[in-house]
């Protein structure tokens, strides 16, 4: 395919990118992101997005056309990005003649103004055409650059964009470190990076990137040539630094990022639990939120004085084991009717179980026990003994850290135990596993029970962190989110769950201010991720092998190569 240039390709890709650019505009992204400058007064995120579409069109067209001479590449690139820009112009003209706003909410005057650079229809259109051509030329030049140089430049550009986008976060975090305030004042203006700031970042990172890429192998060689004793010292040293960093993290990151880390920790706990059920034992559970809810409600009901129950345990730590145990028991109870079900029957029954738990917690019938729609409030803090303290996200961080370390430890031990191997066998083939003498009932129930207990633990900490729980917090989307993160991370892989939680819970939190598009991008990211790297970010060795097989066996011979290069960072 690559060797066979297709003449209509630049046009096709131009048309496609044009449609995409128009859709981006109609989605309201250009307007919403237009309010946020990457570099103050120079370029907004919205325009950058549009230009990136043109650039991508040109770049792809050049790559696929097989053109090599600079003149040709410029022609091909400019052609396709020009076509894309014509689409955008067409949208503006169409919008000025008819009321597109009747159907498309974002087809409004402000959008058209943005797309014409506030220069009026004719001048704006011309400018947009010029932008299209310029992007095409830029793409051609980018292609013409040596691969290495391209790499040097790309990273700093990405960093400039990232730092521009995350302005709020960076400045707020740096508020904790007053001595760094001058740096932010230098880097940022009120909206976006300052021009000298952007330049400094670019130059600085270019330099770092250059040294990193050039000298990395030298450093590795030097490390490799060290005597074993010093190598060990370096290793232990880095582990030590890692541990200290882990412990210091909330102090460095401040209130909000600690909160984000707490959420990551919460999902990490759930992810590790579901990983046992889905990842290890291969039982598809779509109602995992049920155990989270059960853990939270058990602790909530036991420690909240508001519901007026006879038995109140004031101490969260005393209630905690109940939460974990009740969740584990519920896991086993759910496990029994679904023992004989497979695959998607299991999925729907577990989904139903999750919904049943939520509906019961919400119901008027059980309101005296669980608080119904008004939830359970005034749940105890995890105070130790008489030691009362204010619980902030920073202090909960340590609770989550402890919980995660415990659960990771247990998971790892179990995975490599006899039970873990039995789960793998059940996952691979139930019939064979049974024939090998594995007790299916006990194996499956243990998976459900243990997975549920981790969920219960997560719920117990969650209840205390929020001090209040509402049935609405335990909806189906949580189950979906947890499932997605373990698959994105790499099913069955414990480091994978960590990475998955960071990617799916941490990253979207950072982009909370772009809430309108969070789910849109989240959905797109899930799809792209699965297409590009179906084995997950940190695949389990065994799984990776299986997937490798699927690719090589079923895809045409050239395909896997493409997939691999795309997957690499």
């Amino acid at each position, binding site marked *: 395919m690559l060797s066979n240039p297709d003449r209509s390709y630049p046009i096709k890709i131009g048309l496609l990118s044009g449609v995409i650019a128009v859709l981006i505009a109609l989605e309201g992204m250009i307007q919403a992101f237009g309010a946020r400058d990457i570099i103050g007064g120079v370029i907004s995120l919205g325009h950058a997005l549009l230009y990136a579409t043109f650039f991508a069109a040109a770049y792809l067209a050049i790559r696929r056309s097989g053109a090599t001479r600079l003149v040709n590449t410029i022609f091909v690139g400019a052609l396709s990005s020009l076509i894309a820009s014509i689409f955008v112009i067409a949208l503006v003209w169409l919008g000025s003649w008819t009321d597109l706003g009747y159907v498309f909410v974002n087809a409004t005057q402000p959008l058209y103004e943005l797309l014409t650079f506030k220069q009026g229809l004719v001048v704006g259109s011309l400018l947009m055409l010029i932008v299209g051509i310029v992007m095409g030329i830029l793409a051609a030049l980018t292609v013409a650059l040596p691969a290495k140089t391209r790499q040097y430049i790309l990273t700093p550009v990405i960093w400039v964009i990232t730092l521009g986008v995350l302005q709020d976060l960076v400045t707020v975090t740096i508020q904790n470190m007053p001595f760094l305030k001058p740096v932010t004042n230098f880097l940022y203006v009120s909206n976006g990076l300052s021009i000298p700031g952007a330049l400094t970042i670019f130059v600085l990172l270019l330099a770092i990137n250059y040294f990193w890429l050039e000298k990395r192998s030298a450093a590795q060689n030097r490390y490799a040539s060290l005597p074993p004793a010093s190598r060990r010292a370096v290793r232990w040293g880095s582990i030590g630094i890692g541990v200290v960093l882990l412990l210091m993290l909330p102090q460095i990151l401040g209130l909000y990022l600690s909160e984000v880390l707490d959420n990551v920790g919460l999902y990490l706990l759930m992810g590790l639990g579901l990983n046992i059920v889905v990842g290890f034992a291969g039982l598809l559970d779509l109602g995992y939120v049920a155990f989270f809810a059960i853990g939270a409600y058990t602790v909530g009901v036991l420690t909240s004085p508001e519901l007026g129950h006879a038995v109140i345990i004031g101490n969260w730590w005393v209630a905690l084991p109940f939460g974990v145990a009740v969740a584990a028991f519920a896991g086993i109870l759910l496990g029994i009717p679904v023992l004989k079900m497979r695959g998607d029957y299991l999925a729907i029954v577990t989904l139903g179980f999750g919904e049943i738990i939520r509906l019961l917690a919400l119901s008027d019938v059980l309101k005296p026990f669980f608080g119904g729609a008004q939830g359970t409030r005034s749940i105890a803090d995890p105070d130790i003994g008489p030691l009362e303290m204010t619980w902030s996200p920073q202090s909960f961080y340590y609770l989550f850290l402890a919980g995660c370390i415990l659960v990771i430890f247990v998971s790892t031990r179990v995975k490599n135990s006899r039970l873990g191997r039995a789960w793998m066998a059940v996952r691979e083939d139930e019939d064979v596993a049974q024939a090998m003498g594995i007790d299916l009932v006990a194996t499956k129930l243990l998976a459900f029970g243990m997975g549920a207990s981790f969920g219960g633990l997560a719920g117990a900490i969650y209840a205390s962190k929020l001090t209040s729980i509402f049935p609405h917090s335990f909806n189906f989307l949580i189950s979906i989110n947890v499932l997605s993160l373990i698959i994105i991370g790499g099913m069955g892989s414990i480091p994978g769950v960590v990475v998955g939680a960071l990617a799916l819970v941490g990253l979207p939190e950072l982009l909370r201010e772009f809430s309108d598009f969070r789910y849109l991008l989240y959905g797109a990211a899930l799809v792209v991720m699965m297409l590009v790297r179906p084995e997950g970010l940190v695949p389990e060795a065994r799984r990776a092998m299986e997937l*490798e*097989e699927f690719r*090589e*066996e079923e895809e*045409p*011979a050239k395909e896997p190569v493409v997939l691999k290069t795309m997957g690499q960072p």
Partner: protein
Amino acid sequence: MAMLEVNDIHSYYGNIHALKGISLTVDKGEIVTLIGANGAGKTTTLKTISGLLHPRHGAIMLEGERIDGLPPHQIVMRGIGQAPEGRKIFGALTVLENLEMGAYARNDTAAIARDLDFVFALFPRLQERRSQLGGTLSGGEQQMLAMGRALMAHPRVLMLDEPSMGLAPVLVEAIFETIRKLNKEGTTILLIEQNAAKALQVASRGYVIETGQIVLQDSAENLRKSEKVRKAYLGEA
């Protein structure tokens, strides 16, 4: 020109190198057999020819036209019919529907009807059970159906994968009789068998495959006589 020519193909399952350069030819009107032990690569060879697997290296030609790399349905349309290993009858489809599926790639209604009559004449049992579900047939009937279904494609080359497997001796006899009959009527056949004795009786030429490589090739008669084949595949001392 050979009807079917397989030239030095290499196929993989994941990282497992299953076929390490298989070459064979089937001429028009021949029965060629490919014999070998379990796991030697017989079925993999057929899968590669029919497009279920794509060779990483090598070429497959049907009457001089390259077919490797094409999707399976196009290979069938070009005239390679197959009765797969384990028969693979559509259990939820009736016998008639199974046969219709065999002719899926064709549009010539009249000719299809003729072929249907031909198959029913060949296997009267199938006609009796035409509206019965495929899954309810006995093993022998299923084999007949699998062969009949493959014939419905009116193939230029018919590939049979272990047609005698799991059948009672009487039925095996009948199946081989049918193979001979089909060949007499002009069908080119590539036959894969573990039952080497039977296969070499009906075939004109044969190939012996071991761990993904052709180790012997000769006329059926010579193969029957060969020391190696007798020891390894005919079960003689």
